[in-house]
């Protein structure tokens, strides 16, 4: 079975929601749509307060190549354009829309169309105008990824259905319920980057999804299924390429330098919706789970819905929450308010009651476990030590920018050191110095 070097295998805890079908969350009374939900420049608003908008209407235009437009996810009236708390912890300029309850779509939303007659560039424009970003978490603009530079020779597209984060099941459900859409999306990506091999990679703890996809790809000669070992972080781009194809993406380079494009299953469905159904990215599947939620669910949520509204639909909180995390437990970001909106990169809302929060750090005992399991072969303990002693020059030789902050080192650390935080500080400091 395919796998990579290092990694950990935390308790999966996916049983809470793995068997629950994706439900449509109700239209919220108010949405908060941040202008920057993607990597790159924030979008520029094209609506004004008091303006009426419809579902799917473009409310902010992309500003530059690495940027994306933003669409209204409900119909109603723009109330305000102001800074609002965001899942990344900072206040961000957001468009606030109050619903009129009608959910009136723009004219040609959800129309079926054939895309074979479009040119490659036309399809890329459609994907950009639909605001499609990578739904795995980093939210990188998809049209940029699908515009490979001339010199690159891409032969393989990998659809990432690993979902190695514990608790999350949104990709799992997508593979079961929207398997056709995933294949359609894969075909569009393969056409745009001129690749003749498509691989869907699924971890071996999702046997039902593997069955469904095997049935789906039966008569498609250039699409195959790769079953990979359930191991964290199997779903990280570079680790997945290494596991499935045996290729190594050099440090500081992109997957396309190894001739591969990796895309999340959710992104594949979003691409298909944008190209075939003319539907911009206005909703996404979110796993609402954890011991702190009364009735955990997989939900199709409109972008901009407050966490509070989503949790209320799942029966509310079952007690005083100990920790609320946007995303999964390993890489997600802890939140301090439930007023933050669901954005394009929000794959899950995890509420833990009485969490095992370790506030005390002990001393590093040099056991070397963090080095053993680091999937990118870094020395987390050394980065931590140098950050604590503020030796910013010494940090430069430890390649902090190769770290994807998967958190496996902090997970195994017997001294409970805040290793990932130290890497984040090192990255911030180094990039500030380089400026």
């Amino acid at each position: 079975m395919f796998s990579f070097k290092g990694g950990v295998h935390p308790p999966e805890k996916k049983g809470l929601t793995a068997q629950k079908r994706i439900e449509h969350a109700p239209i919220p009374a108010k949405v908060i749509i941040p202008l920057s939900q993607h990597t790159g420049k924030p979008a520029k608003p094209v609506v004004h307060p008091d303006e009426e908008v419809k579902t799917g209407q473009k409310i902010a235009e992309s500003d530059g190549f690495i940027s994306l437009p933003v669409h209204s996810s409900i119909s109603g009236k723009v109330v305000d354009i102001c800074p609002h708390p965001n899942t990344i912890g900072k206040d961000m300029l957001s468009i606030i829309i109050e619903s009129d309850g009608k959910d009136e779509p723009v004219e040609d939303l959800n129309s079926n169309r054939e895309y074979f007659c479009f040119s490659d560039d036309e399809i890329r424009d459609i994907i950009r105008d639909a605001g499609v970003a990578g739904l795995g978490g980093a939210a990188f603009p998809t049209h940029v990824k699908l515009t490979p530079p001339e010199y690159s020779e891409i032969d393989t597209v990998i659809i990432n259905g690993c979902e190695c984060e514990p608790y999350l099941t949104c990709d799992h459900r997508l593979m079961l319920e929207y398997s056709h859409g995933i294949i359609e999306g894969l075909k569009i990506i393969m056409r745009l980057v001129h690749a003749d091999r498509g691989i869907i990679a699924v971890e071996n703890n999702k046997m039902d999804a593997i069955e469904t996809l095997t049935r789906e790809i039966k008569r498609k000669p250039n699409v195959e299924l790769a079953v990979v070992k359930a191991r964290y972080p199997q779903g990280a781009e570079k680790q997945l390429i290494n596991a499935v194809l045996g290729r190594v993406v050099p440090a500081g380079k992109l997957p396309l330098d190894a001739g591969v494009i990796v895309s999340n299953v959710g992104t594949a469905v979003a691409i298909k919706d944008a190209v075939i159904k003319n539907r911009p990215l206005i909703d996404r599947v979110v796993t609402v789970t954890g011991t702190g939620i009364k009735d955990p669910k997989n939900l199709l949520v409109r972008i901009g819905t407050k966490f509070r509204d989503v949790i209320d639909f799942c029966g509310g909180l079952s007690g005083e929450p100990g920790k609320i995390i946007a995303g999964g437990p390993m890489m997600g970001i802890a939140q301090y308010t439930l007023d933050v909106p669901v954005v394009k990169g929000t794959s899950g809302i995890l509420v833990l009651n009485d969490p095992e929060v370790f506030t005390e750090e002990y001393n590093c005992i040099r056991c070397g476990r963090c080095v053993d399991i680091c999937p990118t072969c870094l020395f987390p303990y050394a980065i931590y030590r140098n950050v604590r002693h503020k030796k910013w020059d010494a940090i430069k030789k430890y390649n902090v920018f190769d770290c994807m902050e998967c958190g496996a080192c902090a997970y195994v650390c017997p001294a409970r050191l805040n290793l990932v935080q130290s890497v984040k500080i090192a990255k911030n400091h180094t990039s500030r110095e380089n400026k």
Partner: protein
Amino acid sequence: MILNTVILLGGIGLVFGFILAVAAKKFAVPVDPRQEHLLRILPGANCGACGFPGCSGYAEAMIKEGADPGLCTAGGTETVEKIGEILGREASLRERRVARVLCGGRDCEQKFNYVGINECYAASSVAGGFKSCRYACLGLGDCVKACNFDAIRWEPGKIPEIIPQKCTACGKCIEACPVNVIKLIPEKAEVYVKCGSHDKGPSVKKICKAGCFACRICVKFCPEKAITIEENLAVIDYSRCNGCGICVKKCPSKTIIYTEKHSSKEPEERSKKKKNAESQATNHS
């Protein structure tokens, strides 16, 4: 036996001694005796407040490059006067300043419980700090660890207090503070604004009882017109301030407070000083 050893070792010693003596004469680097003298006078804390690499670097710079002899704030007036004597130059200490923590938010609300590396620079990188005011002192003591002079009094979680007598204005704490809540102000200052928030008035009032919300009352009442509002924060011009204390009495949020310089003075003395200042002003005009 023993004699042989003594002669051999003694002989080697004599030969090497002679070589060293010759080398010391021949390759001697001429050092200005004043430089060594200066080094003995300087405090030797190597704090870097003068901007040179340590005390020896400063001593060398004064001799060779003619650096300003009044830069050693750590040594104070006495040291600077001695330096002046050695160099035979007029030397006066730059106006002595002390560091002050410009945050009075004792009961500032926490935005969230911070769990992580227990130091200010780390905490400030998580969602802009865990205090509800982004200009607030985080109280984890980075400045205390940076201070070479033991001039900061601090209890974990509280806002640190700088002891002006010990502070040498070397600037180490200012460098260490990630929220820039420590500033240097003249030592002779009798009042200061204990807030660094540039947020607009209403939002300051919502989260902090001790913050400056730019009400302009101090600007209106200051008889010397020494206070201005810059970016929603009262700023005192110490070249004009005479320490009358009207601003302290009028400030509704008690953000402007006295320094210890003030309380040690008698009210009569103050009025005398003021009269002097007035008569001087009339003389000038």
